[in-house]
């Protein structure tokens, strides 16, 4: 960690504020609070709406706090909202999402870290070409590749299986992750690397003994990016995972888009929040590490 926020924070950046209600402070906090309003508003609306009953939603406005707090929508969204004949709510999707998430995150990060390491420290003829192609891959719309990948997975016998969806997530996560790891490993001091070479350590030896122990921050970044990306994926899950593995987002779509009579906004909002809880928790826990990891990984070019 070359730049620890704690140490840099001890030095003020601008002119030292003389009193806490200086004009400067008012402007800074004013702007920040304005931004907070923009970022918090949707979360507030989601929570408030999910706690109201339908009659109250129809009469009141979106921002009014609930008069009669009810947890019914949450219960329904989790366990009994219907799509067609199945009235299981989001529950089955949650387990499927976990089953997709864990292997996908582990495998994609394992592969991308080794890739990044090879690209940064063991360049071979053509490695930059492959990396460039990989980067282009980050920009190719998924739609372009949906079709051929269906055929590819069919030939591999992985279509509509857990293995298939894990493979697809690994592939699509590779460009950005490889970029992050490559940049991170490239910033490791040359001397360390050379010393290890002199001691006779090989490709894997250096990776495991020197690189891994010092790369916690970038692993945290990768973990967060992948967790949110994979958890929130809808398109790949609905096409490649197969009905028995449908992730939670597919169930969310099903609940939100099946209206039986009127739209139950409160259930939709509760379902929406339930679906978002896993990545949100990951963020709230590791937000600080995330910024630090980014400082270490993404910032160096």
């Amino acid at each position: 960690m070359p730049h620890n926020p704690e140490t840099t924070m001890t030095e003020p950046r601008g002119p030292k504020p003389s009193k806490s209600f200086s004009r400067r402070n008012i402007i800074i906090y004013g702007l920040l609070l304005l931004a907070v309003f923009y970022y918090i508003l949707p979360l507030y609306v989601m929570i408030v709406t999910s706690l109201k009953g339908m009659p109250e939603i129809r009469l009141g406005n979106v921002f009014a706090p609930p008069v009669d707090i009810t947890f019914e929508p949450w219960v329904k969204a989790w366990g009994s909202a219907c799509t067609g004949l199945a009235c299981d709510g989001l529950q089955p999707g949650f387990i499927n999402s976990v089953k997709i998430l864990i292997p996908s995150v582990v495998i994609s990060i394992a592969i991308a870290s080794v890739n990044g390491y090879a690209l940064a420290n063991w360049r071979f003829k053509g490695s930059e070409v492959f990396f460039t192609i990989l980067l282009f891959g980050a920009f190719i719309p998924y739609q372009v590749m949906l079709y051929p990948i269906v055929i590819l997975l069919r030939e591999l016998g992985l279509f509509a299986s857990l293995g298939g969806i894990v493979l697809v997530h690994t592939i699509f996560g590779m460009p950005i992750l490889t970029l992050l790891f490559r940049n991170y490993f490239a910033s490791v001091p040359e001397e360390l690397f050379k010393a290890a070479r002199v001691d006779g350590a090989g490709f894997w030896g250096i990776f495991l003994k020197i690189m891994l122990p010092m790369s916690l921050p970038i692993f945290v970044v990768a973990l967060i990016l992948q967790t949110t990306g994979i958890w929130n994926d809808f398109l790949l899950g609905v096409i490649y995972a197969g009905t028995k593995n449908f992730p939670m987002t597919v169930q969310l779509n099903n609940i939100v888009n099946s209206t039986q009579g009127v739209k139950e906004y409160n259930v939709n909002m509760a379902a929406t929040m339930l679906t978002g809880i896993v990545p949100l928790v990951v963020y709230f826990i590791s937000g600080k590490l995330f910024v630090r990891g980014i400082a270490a990984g993404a910032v160096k070019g």
Partner: protein
Amino acid sequence: MAQSQRPSSLFRNLSAKIAAIPMILTALVIFVGCTVWTVVYSFTKSRMLPKEDFVGLMQYERLWATKRWLVSVENIAIYGICSLILSLVIGFVLAALLDQKIRFENTFRTIFLYPYALSFIVTGLVWQWILNPTFGIQKVVRGWGFEDFTFDWLANTDYVIYAVLIAGLWQGTGLVMALMLAGLRGIDEDIWKASRVDGIPSWKTYLFIVIPMMRPVFVTTLVIIAAGIVKVYDLILAQTSGGPGIASEVPAKYVYDYMFRAGNLGQGFAASTMMLVTVLIILIPWVILEYGGKKNAS
């Protein structure tokens, strides 16, 4: 920045190549292979299933004569440019504000960053709900007594894309802020001290010294934002479904709709090839600049 004398060329190693096999396979089979496949079939008359029935540029002629495609291209251009500029500006300003030795930095940062944890589907749904003229902000403000207040971007064909932008920025600027903050924290303290000694106002220090030093951060950020823009699909689907009418259609949705809903793969492939070409036109100069420069440095 690139350190001089990488050992790479000296220690050519088999393990490195073996380790890179997954990447090479992905690059060649998926990104090159599937893309080439798509480009080839864009010259065919494939309907629901791919067929080798070549028709030259027919799909492209039809594509560029289609109003919906033109609207889609215009929308992604507006959305792309606005989102790129505003993400960078808002992200940087927020980061700079957070970097002023303020109280509750962690709280502020978490608040700005949490939307990034939510999917575009969720983002689209919530903002559709807030911006909906019949029960969202418009109704609330009218309820306060401003009867003439109108804020109906979602229902307005001219402004709907900006309503999508509001939602997109909400979701994505937090990440940009985090990247920028990381960049700011990476700036050497001495630079600040020096500029203070010289009496340079802080805004000038930011603009002329700090930002140029943060070039790598801006590049990474740009890549991440731009990659997201090209793929904008879920957000539109959840927030507007392309409506009202076709006013908020985007290319990725055109591709999807024509491939799967209309069962016209050829047309969808042609549209996706155009997206790809655009990406290449934008990316190639950047790649040449980046890597051309690096080669000279090392």
